[in-house]
């Protein structure tokens, strides 16, 4: 029998990667190309989508060659992508209308402030499960309509197509201007603020509110079903999955049951909790999102808490303060002291995100005394990630009927043992790291392989998951309580630092 593989394409914020996985979910080969980050103005972040498409056409044959795998040995293709990044292109020619506006871009900040006052968060939460934030695509479409002359009219005339990254790539893979499929999946669509979270269809009231014409939107499909053949890159091979990267990571971590959660620790961190087929509306500052949906099976929902600054605080410590020369050295420096010495850092560099959502907060370092060394600061940097995780988990436990019993982790910061132990200590649940660190790519491969019949069911995927490391809680409960109180007092001191305009 010919060995067959599943191909995963992860179109991420910094690079486009192609990974082949075998039947055991083991990584066979990787190819990766970075793309340029464009910062035309402070707070603006853009990507050249033609560059990204060309990178995709390069990494696919590179990954096949590295694994010595022929195109006929690929059973299916799955795509995971950076979410919310907004691409507009011309229906007739396939030419992009400017660069993509990336999820980190904050040009819609003033629009967000307006919408939160009128019509207010409730209007949006009721329909799409999301409060207004600079992350989401609908605000960017509105911004483009308001700032690019004639664009809105052309969109109404059906000349312009919208998509997030997976839409753009699938459209090009399946033929582009020559009959390409204009589709998205429910996980990506759930991040636009345009999809109704219950019906998984574009919401007429939201479309009307943002003035987005339906004819520019892709068709919403299941994250795991056969879409079409990837003619341009791999003739004859079907694309059978597309998921947003964080949902892909949840799937790759095999969090298939209600109450299972994962946190991806990177520049920022994203904690997703599977809430099963129940749509849980958060009363504690979390987002309701689609976790996954396999073919015609019921939709599985998730609660999401995103933390803006985690790994980027370590980068700041390295690049701006110059106290360490590489990110992993933060652990070495932190271990030069026994504890934080009473020092806390709240990294509200651009306000506080989940669960507090306070844009008027700015970062603070509190508890400074002449006793504090750079080792204590290093501890405070790592502990900030632990406490921010705790706040999101507390919000999830308050919103969900199933309390968190274990946290599955992935991402670059999981190599930091001190941090992972601290996370286990403050959450008071075991923290486990899986053997395949590439959970985003693995999740897209799993969804694609399921839809293509390469894997029969979720149970088989569960058996592929293996524990690579586990950290058990080992903190005195009284200390956990008092340290958490200290952290919360530190957070209070970060609030209200930015005053509204006009206030002296």
């Amino acid at each position: 029998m010919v060995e067959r593989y599943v191909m995963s394409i992860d179109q991420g914020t910094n690079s486009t990667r192609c990974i082949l996985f075998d039947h055991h979910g083991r990584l066979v080969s990787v190819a990766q190309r970075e793309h340029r980050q464009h910062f035309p103005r402070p707070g603006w972040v853009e990507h050249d989508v033609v560059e990204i498409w060309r990178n995709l056409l390069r990494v696919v044959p590179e990954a096949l060659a590295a694994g010595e795998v022929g195109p006929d040995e690929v059973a299916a293709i799955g795509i995971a992508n950076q979410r919310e990044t907004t691409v507009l292109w011309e229906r007739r020619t396939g030419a992009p209308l400017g660069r993509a506006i990336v999820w980190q871009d904050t040009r819609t900040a003033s629009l967000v402030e307006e919408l939160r006052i009128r019509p207010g968060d409730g209007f949006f939460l009721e329909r799409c499960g999301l409060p207004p934030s600079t992350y989401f695509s609908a605000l960017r479409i509105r911004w483009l309509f308001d700032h690019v002359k004639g664009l809105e009219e052309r969109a109404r005339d059906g000349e312009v197509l919208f998509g997030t990254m997976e839409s753009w790539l699938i459209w090009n893979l399946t033929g582009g201007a020559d009959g390409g499929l204009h589709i998205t999946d429910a996980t990506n669509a759930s991040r636009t603020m345009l999809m109704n979270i219950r019906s998984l269809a574009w919401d007429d009231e939201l479309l009307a509110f943002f003035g987005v014409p339906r004819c520019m939107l892709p068709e919403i499909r299941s994250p795991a079903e056969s879409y079409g053949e990837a003619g341009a890159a791999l003739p004859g091979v079907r694309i059978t999955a597309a998921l947003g990267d964080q949902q892909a990571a949840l799937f790759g971590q095999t969090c298939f049951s209600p109450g299972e959660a994962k946190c991806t620790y990177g520049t920022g961190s994203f904690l997703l909790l599977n809430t099963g087929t129940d749509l849980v509306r958060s009363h504690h500052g979390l987002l309701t999102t689609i976790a996954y949906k396999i073919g015609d099976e019921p939709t599985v929902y998730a609660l999401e808490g995103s933390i803006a600054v985690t790994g980027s605080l370590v980068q700041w410590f390295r690049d701006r303060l110059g106290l360490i020369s590489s990110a992993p050295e933060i652990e070495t420096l932190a271990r030069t002291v026994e504890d934080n010495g009473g020092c806390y850092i709240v990294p509200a560099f651009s306000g506080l995100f989940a669960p507090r959502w306070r844009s008027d907060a700015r970062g603070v370092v509190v508890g400074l005394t002449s006793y504090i060394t750079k080792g204590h600061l290093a501890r405070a940097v790592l502990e900030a990630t632990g406490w921010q995780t705790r706040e999101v988990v507390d919000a999830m436990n308050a919103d969900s009927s199933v309390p968190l019993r274990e946290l599955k982790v992935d991402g670059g910061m999981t190599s930091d043992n001190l941090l992972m132990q601290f996370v286990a200590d403050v959450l008071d649940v075991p923290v486990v790291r899986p053997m395949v660190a590439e959970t985003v790519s693995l999740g897209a491969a799993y969804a694609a392989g399921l839809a293509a019949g390469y894997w029969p069911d979720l149970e088989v995927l569960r058996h592929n998951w293996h524990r690579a490391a586990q950290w058990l809680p080992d903190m005195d409960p009284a200390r956990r309580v008092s340290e958490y109180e200290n952290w919360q007092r530190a957070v209070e001191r970060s609030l209200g630092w930015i005053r509204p305009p006009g206030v002296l």
Partner: protein
Amino acid sequence: MAGPVQSIERAAAILRLLAGGPRRLGLGEVAASLGLAKGTAHGILRTLQHVDFVEQDAATGKYQLGAALLHLGTSYLDVNELRSRSINWADALAARSGESVRLGTPLEGRVLVVHHVFRPDDTLQSLEVGSLLPLHASSLGKVLLAFGSAPLDEALEPAPEAYTRHTLVTRAQLTQALADVRETGWAAEVQEMSMGEAGVAMPIRGHGGLVVGAIGLSGAVERICDGQGRPRPALVTLLRDAARAISRDLGAARW
């Protein structure tokens, strides 16, 4: 205690002199600046050149600091950095071999476990990062001893403990075993720390080929070893792939 060694003092003075400015210096200038006879200065410069601390310009014959000296301060590799750079390869090694993986670096006459990946069978295992292993009775330790990362005297003083009847405890036994490790490029430990257990390890090299740590597999002796009590060739191949991949990532050119 003996007094300062004059030639080392003079070599240090020459290095300081060369480091003092951007200009290359000729032999006469070096000798005159430090009040040394030309013959003495020449001998020291040639020795420094031999260890790559000094380079001589082919056209002018003048001297400058060597590239090796520039890397001297950076050849130390932070253990957390080592873990971070190894983690994907160590995971892949555990997944493919079906055994647990550890990385070790020397620490005060022992092996510090800096990274540990569980055996992928989901049995109850506890993380051993931060624990210490004996140099003489672990495969990781033997690699560190064989490639000069840890001095043999540290393993022999105090007298090494005999954990089992297979533990190597004499200088002669260890010297022979370490020669074998250098010959094959890997170290095995078969029931030398505890009966029924075995391990095999290889060096991780950084810049210039310097051994910065060791990576090893360990598990039940019947899984690690073949009928002759030798590590299974398939496991050694997987281990070699991982050790080389990490070494390449760390900048060891020829690996």
